[in-house]
């Protein structure tokens, strides 16, 4: 235990998210006898780890993986749902720089206020004041209000105060992102000194460059679970894999959006069609079933557009283009069928279609993402269409 700074055992944190938040007394009274339903969100699941004294320990993970929750639990800001956090030594109480900075106060007042939050009284702060200001390189600005500082200046000031904290363990949540290279160099020196003095630092980040530069060991957290603790280079490799794996997962289909009118409606219960086309298919057929309630004018225009996954419209057609006849006289259940040459490279496509008055002032029916087309083909995305081409050799 002697060389252990932080010991975390079977730590879990669950947030209760009430289905309907009772932020008013009335609803609490009204629903008093009804059973409250909660959605429990598990932010951290059974984490155990040990951080040694003098270690620069990194925690890496994607957004929402639970890394900040872990840091807040270490800092004692959150209370654990299960498990324990044992801290050996004193701990900085903050996880972010410049907590409690007030934009309406001068730089000087903010130094004292921030110092008090770290546990320093006026006398101690007065003794350190000059060093803090010098380190932040803000001698000329201390009587100005903080709101007139640039964000870089604020971080410099906050950092200068934070490193005075006499605690054995420092907790930091992505702090080194701001500041010019000169200031960063100074930060590096400070970190080096802190390490020499056997101080422990826990840094949470999703920036692999920061992690690799500073940390001795890194914990990878994903989906509320501790995946692995390893050397920075290996942990980052794993983290990159997790990120890639996420990208391979298909993005969910886009949502069907319907605009109807008194003239035409989509048939009830329509589910977006999923059409698959292989390289052999010369044509793609897309059906649009609808119910015509009233006869539409003769100059009604039908249109279809196809977008690729990057939301580029790569294909568009209207009946105006080729003076195609498009008359809708018979009411009742109808179906419009588009037959399009399969000119698409491999990928997923989303289809919008509809019909409008000639001047586009009236939309009779408009369906966005009403069909999804999956095209097989050459795994090539450099080009947008495969135009049918005839080769003639003389």
């Amino acid at each position, binding site marked *: 235990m002697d060389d252990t700074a932080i010991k975390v055992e079977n730590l879990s944190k669950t947030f209760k998210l009430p289905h309907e938040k*009772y932020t008013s007394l009335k609803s609490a009274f009204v629903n008093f006898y009804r059973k409250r339903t909660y959605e429990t969100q598990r932010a951290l699941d059974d984490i155990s780890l040990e951080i040694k004294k003098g270690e620069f320990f990194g925690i890496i993970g994607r957004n929402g993986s639970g890394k900040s929750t872990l840091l807040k639990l270490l800092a004692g*800001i959150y209370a654990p749902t299960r498990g324990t956090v044992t801290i050996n030594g004193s701990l900085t*109480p903050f996880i972010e720089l410049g*907590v409690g900075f007030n934009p309406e106060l001068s730089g000087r*007042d903010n130094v004292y*206020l921030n110092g*008090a939050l770290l546990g320093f009284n006026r006398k101690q702060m007065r003794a350190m004041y000059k060093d803090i200001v010098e380190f932040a390189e803000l001698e000329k600005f201390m009587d100005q209000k903080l709101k007139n500082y640039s964000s870089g200046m604020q971080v410099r000031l906050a950092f200068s105060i934070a490193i005075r904290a006499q605690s054995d363990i420092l907790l930091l949540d992505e702090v080194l992102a701001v500041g010019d290279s000169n200031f960063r160099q100074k930060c590096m020196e400070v970190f080096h000194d802190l390490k020499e003095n056997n101080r422990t630092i826990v840094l949470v980040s999703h920036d692999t460059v920061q992690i690799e530069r500073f940390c001795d060991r890194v914990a990878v957290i994903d989906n509320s679970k501790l995946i692995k603790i390893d050397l920075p280079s290996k942990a980052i490799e794993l983290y990159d894999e997790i990120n890639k794996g996420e990208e391979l997962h298909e993005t969910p289909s886009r949502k069907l959006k319907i605009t109807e009118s008194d003239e035409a409606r989509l048939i009830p219960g329509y589910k977006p069609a999923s059409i698959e086309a292989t390289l052999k298919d010369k044509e793609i057929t897309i059906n649009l079933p609808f119910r015509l309630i009233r006869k539409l004018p003769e100059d009604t225009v039908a249109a279809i557009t196809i977008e690729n996954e990057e939301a580029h419209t790569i294909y568009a057609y209207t009946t105006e283009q080729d003076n195609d006849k498009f008359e809708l006289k018979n009411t009742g259940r109808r179906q419009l069928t588009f037959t399009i040459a399969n000119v698409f490279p491999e990928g997923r496509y989303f289809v919008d279609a509809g019909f409008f008055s000639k001047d586009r002032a009236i939309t009779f029916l408009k369906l966005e993402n009403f069909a999804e087309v999956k095209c097989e083909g050459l795994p090539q995305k450099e080009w947008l269409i495969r135009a049918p081409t005839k080769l003639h050799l003389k």
Partner: protein
Amino acid sequence: MIGNYFSKKNRALLAELVRTDFKLRYQGSVLGYAWSLLRPLLLFLILYVVFVQFLKIGQGFPHFPVYLLLGIVLWSFFSEITSQGLSSIVGRGSLIRKIRIPRWVIILSSSISAVINLLLNLIVVAVFAVFNQVEFTSSLLWAPLILLEIYIFALGLSLFLSALYVKYRDISFIWEVILQAGFYLTPILYPLSLITHLTLQKIIILNPMAQAIQDMRYSAVTQETITAYGVFNSGWYRFIPFAIIASVFIAGLLFFKAEAKYFAENV
């Protein structure tokens, strides 16, 4: 144990939070801190003109202007602590989410600025008292204890209300209404002798604020004030206000302690 709570760190934090509050309050005003004396002085002058000169309430009652002012000062002390305390935890939400500081320091710091205001107001009242030729007697020695009583009562309520406010945002409106009702149910603008119905008088004086204000007037202004002691003739009923205060403070403290763990995630 108490020494641990009031460690050097916590005292420094408390002092700095109070100082910040004060600095921000008078920022940008030309007269600055002078307002903390000027404001009550001007407000008292208005009350004096309206109630004593126009409405002629309390005529024939010795030192009524001072009697009236003292009541108002004590009530606004109570109302300031509780309403500032109520919103203090939510108001410092960004701090609570990001730093581990003892939560009660926040409540205490918001109450201390009210204490400072009270002391400044009392100076103004004292000036009025001198002008009104109020005789000071040895019973004035009770005054600090009575102030402490009000402070403990208000602090207990603040602890309870602030923790409740994190969960239910209706509390601020409800408390505003309760304060307004309390203002009229407490003999502040009228002398208690105006209520001739004896049972009603007894019920009114059971309210800790009524008891405290009347006792304060008795000790500082005139012994013609009706106090709880006088109403109940040394019966055990006279201890009810103190029992209310003690139970409110203990309940508030326990509730606050239980809830404080979850402030960071609920606020």
